[in-house]
């Protein structure tokens, strides 16, 4: 990797891309090319895939002409992430919703959805959502796994 020697903190990445699945995958690839441990990569991929897919699917309702702005700023304690779009707002109760489901039920009653936001909540710190001037502004941190901290 050409920027492998770049100090961690200088790697701030700012991307602006259209709301289609291909562009989302490309953006994800760029984030994963930052200098991150394998553990960080796997968490970043899970979280950003969910957040960006939600924007494509729900905020823009699969309309590929929307725009997504993503900034990822590595710090000593993890990654600070800011995601903005101009699509529909998040459901009012979602940002603070406690996702809970019963897994002791019969196999036939197991949930097949509702996992996405749970994963985002579980894997991020300081998750904040704001609707401002027709924009969705979602910010959070992805903490560095304990074993990676010096």
């Amino acid at each position: 990797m050409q920027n492998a020697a770049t100090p961690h903190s200088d790697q701030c990445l700012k991307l602006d891309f259209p709301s289609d699945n291909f562009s989302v995958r490309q953006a994800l690839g760029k984030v994963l090319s930052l200098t991150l441990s394998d553990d960080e990569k796997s968490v970043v991929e899970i979280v950003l895939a969910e957040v960006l897919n939600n924007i494509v699917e729900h905020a823009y309702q699969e309309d590929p002409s929307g725009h997504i702005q993503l900034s990822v700023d590595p710090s000593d304690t993890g990654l600070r992430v800011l995601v903005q779009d101009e699509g529909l707002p998040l459901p009012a109760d979602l940002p603070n919703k406690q996702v809970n489901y019963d897994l002791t039920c019969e196999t036939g009653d197991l949930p097949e959805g509702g996992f996405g936001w749970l994963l985002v909540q579980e894997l991020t710190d300081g998750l904040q959502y704001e609707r401002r001037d027709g924009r969705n502004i979602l910010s959070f941190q992805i903490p560095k796994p304990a074993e990676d901290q010096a």
Partner: protein
Amino acid sequence: MQLTYQDGPEARVITVDNSRIDAAIAIKFKDQMRDMTSDGPQRVVVDMTKVDFIDSSGLGAIVAAMKQVPDGRSFELAALSNTVGKVFALTRMDSVFTIHDNVDAALDGGLANAS
């Protein structure tokens, strides 16, 4: 979406040849799984070795695939990657599925002892 299977005396091993199970292939995954789990050996082990990543839609498809398996048949998973294992653990789905370290462990000797 690419699934293949091989039958041994004890189990049908279904191999997933995709590196990702996500929204793009979730429905095909579920449909192909329905075909592959409706007959053959009673025990089904899904080899996930090649799957690097699943998202919430992929997890939903795997749960749906398990739910549609006829009564009396198993639907077990083997060889989850670090990332895939994390998704199962965080959603507590690891408590619902039988998960093996690898296919050999699942079969305790492998398919090789077929006659």
